[in-house]
């Protein structure tokens, strides 16, 4: 009975909405077994607002058209229209994505912490920067995340690395990018709950019912993403994505890598989401191994099995077993799964200077190039003249091409370095930069000052070398393009003053100054006289 009521309600709303805009909701779940026994799960919920266009910045001062959505979340729609955001990407991740073992993620934004970037039109009555401020505060409220801290000290505009994923409506005004990361932010239940609220079926039915906070936040890596883009001819697309790397071996008692929905998520799909136009689960099948998959999929080929949730029998509990395997042996050596591997470290024990070192390995046998983006907050200032590249101990500064550099300004802007590195086949390049750590006033330190400060990840975008003639022989290299690779975040340890000393320092320094000042003027102003100290003297 409840179901019919809901259906009826949806129908009514749907009729009302169809007068304004038609909407389409698709959900998808990708499950991919990884070489180290883990399972990568990728949930994608996309809502397409057909025929809609992002708000024109010129209309910002005027009354906005009324917003009436059935499936598209109104809370987010209002934010997008209030600040005239054309394209928006917000990711909240926890953990370090291990590219070498897990390969490229389904969703490229896997930098630890919060990352927000948006393309916004210029030339409106409200400036891009003030809209950016409003946007991050609104999103902070919506997702219960500290996105308000993504202020000017963390905001940059790295246009080379963060190209729009959709289209920018061809209006007279140009577009601007704003990008900021907050590596110390961690995704938690309080972020997942508002995220689920944006889904038309919440986590009550359909694929979203697998999003169980207990299991998801226990994963080795987990992240949430909100992606809004404009697709010309289609409309505005909102994609809510959730990724997780789950470890069935850790959960299982027998140390087997067999997994099922009930084992991984502690939930099954009891019913399909009634408003979803399509609801598909794809399970990537193990290659060259004996396995069993239940229940039988709707469709299957050599690479993956597909389940259409509305068609299969419910409750749905997909499971894969490796019947011949007693317990899972962790592979000791896994061939790197990506074209390049990047490791970034901060060297040096002292609290006033150090060295930022990156080691970039080209795992391929052709020459590759990679865009290198470093956004360092002013808490760590590097000397650009000390940027050196070394391969096998030989200085190769010619392989690094500087594209742009914005120096840091304390309390105002972070440093932005964009470069292109050329990586010879099967070689490791060592990139080093000398850094200095600034000294902060005691009021600028956070309450847990000794913990240190998180540095945002560096981003690499590998692409096939343009002058490499063999580029065509590697078909997967075209897929390399626009896949951003994030390095893990770093912790920088800044020198701290004594926090209990302000009065003492003011008193002692002022005493010394007053002492010297007083004695100088004492000497200068009083007359010198000769006095007789001995009575007997003449």
């Amino acid at each position, binding site marked *: 009975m409840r179901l019919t009521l809901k259906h009826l309600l949806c129908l009514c709303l749907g009729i009302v909405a169809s007068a304004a805009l038609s909407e389409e909701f698709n959900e998808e779940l990708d499950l991919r077994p990884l070489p180290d026994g883990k399972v990568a799960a990728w949930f994608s919920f996309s809502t397409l607002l057909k025929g809609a266009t992002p708000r024109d910045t010129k209309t910002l001062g005027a009354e906005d058209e009324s917003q009436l959505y059935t499936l598209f979340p109104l809370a987010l729609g209002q934010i997008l229209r209030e600040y005239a955001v054309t394209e928006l990407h917000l990711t909240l991740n926890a953990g370090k994505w291990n590219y070498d073992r897990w390969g490229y993620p389904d969703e490229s934004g896997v930098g630890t912490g919060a990352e927000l970037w948006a393309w916004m039109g210029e030339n409106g009555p409200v400036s891009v920067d003030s809209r950016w401020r409003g946007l991050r505060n609104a999103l902070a409220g919506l997702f219960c995340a500290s996105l308000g801290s993504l202020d000017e000290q963390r905001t940059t505009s790295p246009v080379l690395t963060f190209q729009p994923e959709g289209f920018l409506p061809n209006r007279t005004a140009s577009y601007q990018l704003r990008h900021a990361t907050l590596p110390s932010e961690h995704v938690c239940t309080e972020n997942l709950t508002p995220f689920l609220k944006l889904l038309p079926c919440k986590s009550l039915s359909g694929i979203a019912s697998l999003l169980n906070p207990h299991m998801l936040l226990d994963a080795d890596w987990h992240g949430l993403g909100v992606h809004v883009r404009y697709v010309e001819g289609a409309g505005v697309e909102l994609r809510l994505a959730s990724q997780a790397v789950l470890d069935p071996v850790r959960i299982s008692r027998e140390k087997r890598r067999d997994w099922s929905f009930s084992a991984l998520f502690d939930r099954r799909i009891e019913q399909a989401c009634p408003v979803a136009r399509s609801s598909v689960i794809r399970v990537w099948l193990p290659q060259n191994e004996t396995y069993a998959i239940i229940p039988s999929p709707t469709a299957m080929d050599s690479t993956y099995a597909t389940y259409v949730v509305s068609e299969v029998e419910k409750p749905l509990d997909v499971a894969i077993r490796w019947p011949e395997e007693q317990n899972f042996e962790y592979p000791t050596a896994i061939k790197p799964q990506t074209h390049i591997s990047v490791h970034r470290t901060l060297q040096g*024990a*002292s*609290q*006033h*200077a150090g060295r930022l070192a990156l080691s970039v390995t080209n795992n391929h046998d052709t020459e590759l190039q990679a865009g290198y983006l470093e956004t360092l907050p*002013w808490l760590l*200032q590097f*000397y*650009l*003249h*000390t940027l050196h590249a070394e391969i096998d101990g030989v200085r190769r500064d010619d392989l690094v091409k*500087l594209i742009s*550099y*914005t*120096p*840091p*300004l*304390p309390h105002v802007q972070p*440093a932005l370095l964009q470069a292109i590195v050329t990586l010879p086949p099967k070689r490791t390049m060592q990139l080093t930069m*000398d850094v*200095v750590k*600034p*000294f*902060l*006033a*005691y*009021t600028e330190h956070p309450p847990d000052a000794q913990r240190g400060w998180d540095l945002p990840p560096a981003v690499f975008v590998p692409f096939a070398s343009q002058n490499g003639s063999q580029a065509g022989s590697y078909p997967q290299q075209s897929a390399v393009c626009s896949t951003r690779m994030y390095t893990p975040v770093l912790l920088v340890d800044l*020198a*701290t*003053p*004594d926090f209990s*000393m*302000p009065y003492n*320092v*003011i008193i*002692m*320094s002022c005493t*010394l*100054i007053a*002492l*010297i*000042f007083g*004695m*100088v*003027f*004492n*000497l*200068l102003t*009083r*007359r*010198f*006289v*000769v*006095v*007789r*100290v*001995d009575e*007997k*003297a003449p």
Partner: protein
Amino acid sequence: MDFTVTFPALVAGRLVLAFTPLTQYLRDDHLLSSPLTSYARLQEGVYLFKHGIDPYSGSTFRHSPLLLSLFSTIAPLNEITAPLLWTASDALAAWSLVHIWRARQNSTSTSRDSLIVALYLLNPYTFLPSLGLSTSSFENALCLLSLMLACRKQASAAILTFAILVQLSLSSILLLLPLLLLLISNPTSQLASPHFLKADVWRILPLAGRFAAYSLLLSGAATLVCGNFSWLGNTWGASLTLPDLTPNPGLWWYFFTEMFDHFRAFFLMVFSVHLLIYVVPFCIKFQHDSLYACFLLLGVLSIFKAYPTLSDPGLFLSMLSLFPETFPYLHHPIVTALLHLHAALLLPLFHYLWLTQGTGNANFFYASTLVFGMANGSALLDSIWAGMRLALGEVQEGYEVMQE
């Protein structure tokens, strides 16, 4: 020993030291180079300038545009030229010091020449910053050169050199008044016979105008080099607003690290204005010997300037050798020497313990900067005392000189 032997020998010795790998470890030292004088920051600025990025758009580079244009064009910086340039600047400073001494003694050659050169070139407070390639060595050299030219009454050259010095370090402007007085008075020692200024004091006005013109010209050149006025805030502004709280042997950095935000502007104003207070009293009290007023103001600067390095007290202590007539009247030279010894040992030790070893905290280093401030203060006070006490000469047994 003969000056023509000792001077080249000492410079050659310094040059050998400058090429040793030891200098690598001195370059990042906070005692030897401040953010305004650091060699790494200078290199960074030159690098950015050559790559078409405005070095003053960031906060790393705080050197004068004059140094920027010098090192990005005619004197490229590398591991060969830098030690040569810095040694040359020290040699120039020592040579100027000797010529100030000769002008003061009104003779062409004296027996103390070698001693004075040695006191400058072997003073660890001046030669360590120079080995660490701190541009404060250039400031010292320009300061001594302009004083020497002023002693020789070469007004234009002295004022131009001084205008360049002010471009490099704004706080040196304190010396303007005594320098101009020195130009119109006698450089020989008058401490023993104080008298009113014999020359017409209004003669300094055209000289001050000339200084203003040179400064405007140099500022204009600096603006041309940068293409905008952003250098003003990053170079001169830094010594007034203290944007970089990197530790140094001075008094400002920890005071403003620990300062409450709402009092910061007030105390910045107090600290800057406090420096100006000393100028006129020193010039009035030592109107008979303006060089001594310059010397005392350098002592004030070495204690109270915004970004001091060890070369500032080094210059003051080396200049002490110009005034041997005051030595018999020093009150407490032993105390001063011991305070300096104490601070010289504690400063690098506590800096290392705090920032590298991690076993000490900021208060340790702060305490040693206070001791260093006391050492400099004690030297300054004793010099003031001796400079004035000298006028009374020897007193008879049973009598003592006091202040009313």
